[in-house]
């Protein structure tokens, strides 16, 4: 009797905390929407048109922030994987795998928007340039990470192997970032951040780019939260199914 009451109290408090988190998540989604609308205004109405490339240069305001957030996602995978290998706690695996999925989504978009920008400027959709090739390798590494998890017969084994890949795979991130400085090929050099060319980006363009990064970071935070909640619910479902099977087993024994 006492155990049922305790379970009910736990369930009620867990339901209350989930509804509070659900509201906070909705607020984050609304904030992401509002910031994105403001971002679109800045990109299309406020930022100056680039003199040589024209309007197509506005792709930069989504292409660059998405690339940065893909790097952030893979950094989260790296940290989460190290923590999982060290502590063997499922929450680190949930964080790493959620970030890996988002990293793949963002890298896919970088690989789609890049060629769309490249075609009218370079005259080609794709070339085996250092930056493009290393980015494609990065995408393949993390697609393998997700496939490794999906096809593992054992969940803990899948988590362990993917954590190892999550640590090793991160080596490609600095290679992608510095590829344009190390090998001077087709892709333009860094215009912002460590190792960039000084004064290569107009001040208004830079402001718009930073605002876009902020808007995409809010969207990224929402998506990561949503993905982690999903993984937690899947975990709850597994434990409930397990306890249901235990109850059924106990009844058969009786």
């Amino acid at each position: 009797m006492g155990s049922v009451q305790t379970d009910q109290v736990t369930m009620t408090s867990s339901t209350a905390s989930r509804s509070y988190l659900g509201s906070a998540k909705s607020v984050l989604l609304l904030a992401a929407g509002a910031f994105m609308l403001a971002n679109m205004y800045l990109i299309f109405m406020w930022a100056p048109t680039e003199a040589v490339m024209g309007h197509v240069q506005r792709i930069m305001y989504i292409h660059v922030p998405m690339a940065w957030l893909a790097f952030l996602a893979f950094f989260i995978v790296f940290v989460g994987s190290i923590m999982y290998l060290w502590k063997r706690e499922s929450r680190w695996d949930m964080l790493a795998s959620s970030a890996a999925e988002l990293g793949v989504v963002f890298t896919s978009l970088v690989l789609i928007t890049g060629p769309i920008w490249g075609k009218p400027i370079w005259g080609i959709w794709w070339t085996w340039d250092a930056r493009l090739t290393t980015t494609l390798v990065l995408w393949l590494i993390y697609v393998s990470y997700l496939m490794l998890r999906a096809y593992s017969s054992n969940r803990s084994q899948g988590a362990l192997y993917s954590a190892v890949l999550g640590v090793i795979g991160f080596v490609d991130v600095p290679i992608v970032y510095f590829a344009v400085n190390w090998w001077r090929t087709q892709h333009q050099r860094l215009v912002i951040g460590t190792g960039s060319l000084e004064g290569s980006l107009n001040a208004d363009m830079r402001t718009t780019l930073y605002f876009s990064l902020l808007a995409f970071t809010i969207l990224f935070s929402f998506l990561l939260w949503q993905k982690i909640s999903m993984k937690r619910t899947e975990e709850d479902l597994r434990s409930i199914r397990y306890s249901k099977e235990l109850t059924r087993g106990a009844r058969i024994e009786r």
Partner: protein
Amino acid sequence: MIALITTPANNIPYLFAAYAVTWAIFFGYVFFTSRRQHELEQEVRLLRDTLERGRISEDPDASN
């Protein structure tokens, strides 16, 4: 280095395509993850209720 630049007016369809693809993928992703989350939550609620009913019917004192 190849630099074949089209006139700004000609490259607007590329700009439109990049933004359209990006937003379509984001909206699709948010839609599918939200739907999956909702389905999972419903399944958790259903299983908890089933478990609770099973416990009460086994132990009538628990309902008091």
